[in-house]
């Protein structure tokens, strides 16, 4: 908010407006969201460990961690919304501003950078219609509001550099053409880059070599 808006807000503040722990009757928590959060809470010895799972649930439900969503999660958990916002803003995968719901995270860390990540990010941005500078500094949403593109730190996909995580699945190595194709597929609902999916990739060393004799011995039942 602007300075003037803030001054007016603060000037009109009353004690009952303090952001305490919300009570359940003050917020309207959708049933499935509440169940997911309560299920998470039950998994841990202490309930605050469910903060990250609760925020994941909020983000999946609303597309991002909305203030109202965080208030709802706070009511279910019995904590203040400020506490949840503090957690949400610390981590890179939680978004606290509205973003496109198709998510493209393009790694721009060392190995990917050496193999053309900067060009790849630019290609994604152009294809999606998102501002490349913003994408590299926190993320940008395409003009039509559908696709969120963000330059990200090492995703652990360096063997398929340059790579991207598209809707939480890894794809690589990607060329700028692949980027354009992927955006097409996201928009049309087709399967994204089936040939580039990491899940299908074999180990880099190739087919299973002959086992080392020391390993073979143990499998034959010897040694111990």
């Amino acid at each position, binding site marked *: 908010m602007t300075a003037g808006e803030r001054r007016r807000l603060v000037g009109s503040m009353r004690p009952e407006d303090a952001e305490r722990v919300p009570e359940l009757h003050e917020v309207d928590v959708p049933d499935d969201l509440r169940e997911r959060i309560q299920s998470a809470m039950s998994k841990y010895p202490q309930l605050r460990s*469910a903060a*990250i799972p609760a925020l994941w649930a909020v983000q999946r439900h609303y597309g991002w961690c909305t203030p109202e969503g965080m208030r709802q999660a706070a009511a279910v958990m019995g904590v203040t919304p400020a506490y949840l916002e503090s957690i949400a803003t610390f981590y890179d*995968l939680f978004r606290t501003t509205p973003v496109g719901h198709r998510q493209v995270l393009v790694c721009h860390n060392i190995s990917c950078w050496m193999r053309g990540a900067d060009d790849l990010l630019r290609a994604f941005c152009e294809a999606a219609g998102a501002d490349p500078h913003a994408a590299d500094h926190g993320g940008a949403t395409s003009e039509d509001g559908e696709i969120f593109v963000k330059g990200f730190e090492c995703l652990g996909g360096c063997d398929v*550099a340059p790579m991207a995580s598209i809707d939480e699945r890894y794809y690589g190595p990607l060329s700028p053409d692949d980027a354009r194709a992927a955006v097409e597929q996201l928009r049309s609902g087709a399967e994204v880059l089936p040939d580039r999916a990491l899940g299908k990739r074999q*180990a*880099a*060393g190739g087919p299973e070599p002959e086992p080392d004799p*020391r390993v073979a011995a*143990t499998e034959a039942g010897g*040694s111990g």
Partner: protein
Amino acid sequence: MASETRVLFRHVDEPGLASIETYRRLGGYRSLERTLKELEPDELLTTLEESGLRGRGGAGFSMGKKASFLPRGDMDKFLCCNADESEPGTFKDRELMQKNPHQLIEGIAIAAIAAGAGWAFIFIRGEYAEMGDVLDRAVEEAYGAGYLGEGILGSACRVEVVVHRGAGAYICGEETALLDSLEGKRGNPRLKPPFPAIQGLYGGPTLINNVETLSNVPHIVANGADWFKGFGTEQSPGTKVVSVSGCVERPGNYEVELGIPSRELIYELAGGPPGGREVKAWFPGGSSAPVLTAAELDLPYSFEAMADAGSMLGSGAIIVADESVSIPQLALRTARFYHHESCGKCTPCREGTNWTVKMLERVISGEATPMDLDIVASVQDNIIGNCLCVLGDSMAMPVGSMVKKFRDEFEAAIEAGKASAPRPLDESAADTRPVALGVS
């Protein structure tokens, strides 16, 4: 001709390895059964310590010794599997979890029993969503088969496993920051002492181990400490899954005996830089390791040799930069990573990474002088040893090493940058006489 020594990666691409039936058919869960039938926790700990298995996540501390630090007695104890693999260049745990999750689960169960931990949390980075799904299914299968939960295989042992997904923060790979994050706080590291073995998760004794470390446990239990010591070197026994990436033909994970010449890893297994180019610099242990040059390529790839060379094995991730890579740009890219990932808790790291990035940006944009390089070097020295955790050092060591070993490239970048930088004022046109006060 170098070749892999597959122990953890044995059968890695066997179809269905991630399912419990296939894993069992190939010999899986026998170590856990043996643990419950024949081995006391103390025996287990001794075996693990004697094997010399060193932490595979970056610190390289003896796993067995670490496990023995947990106090005995009847209290709530915890095991945390550090699956937050975020060190740049590292992707070994990813492949291990995605393709052979039961190997990890078996290792977790055995280690938990050895340490007396009733709860085991797998803290997997949020970006590894697919791998988290695989783990979820495998954990469910393991519960179903009675390998986890209460009364494992009819014994009195109980191990509850929770797969906890992170939300994107490299610092959560630091063990105490992982604990804070798991407790539902921001991922800030804690002061040590107290050490997690005494006062860890929820204040209770906690053992924290890397995915690869725990994946070794079933093999050590099955085959014994001596067998394990038969691989690798005396100070670095066993095999290591090494992630090689960057300027190489065949980036990927390669499992090798520790002590193999680094050149073999980079050139023979990973194919060396493309187009026949030469290695200019390489990180032996992820981006947190001081860079080495082509001169060090023949060194054995082991904990001790890398330490002797002034660097570290770290997570076992090799990133190769060939002649086509600009070292100043590499330094900036590295510094930006740590600046982004700094948790912000302690002054030298928070401000030092911030400042270093600003200075390196000026170096590349041509608004710097050689004196700035001295300041960059000095700032790295001011960070090292003064921070709350090792993240600050993890930037300062590699960046410091780059500025030191490739100083001429930085100076050249400054010169080259000047050419494209805004022109300074034409001095002859400026009036540089001092102004006397009181004179209009």
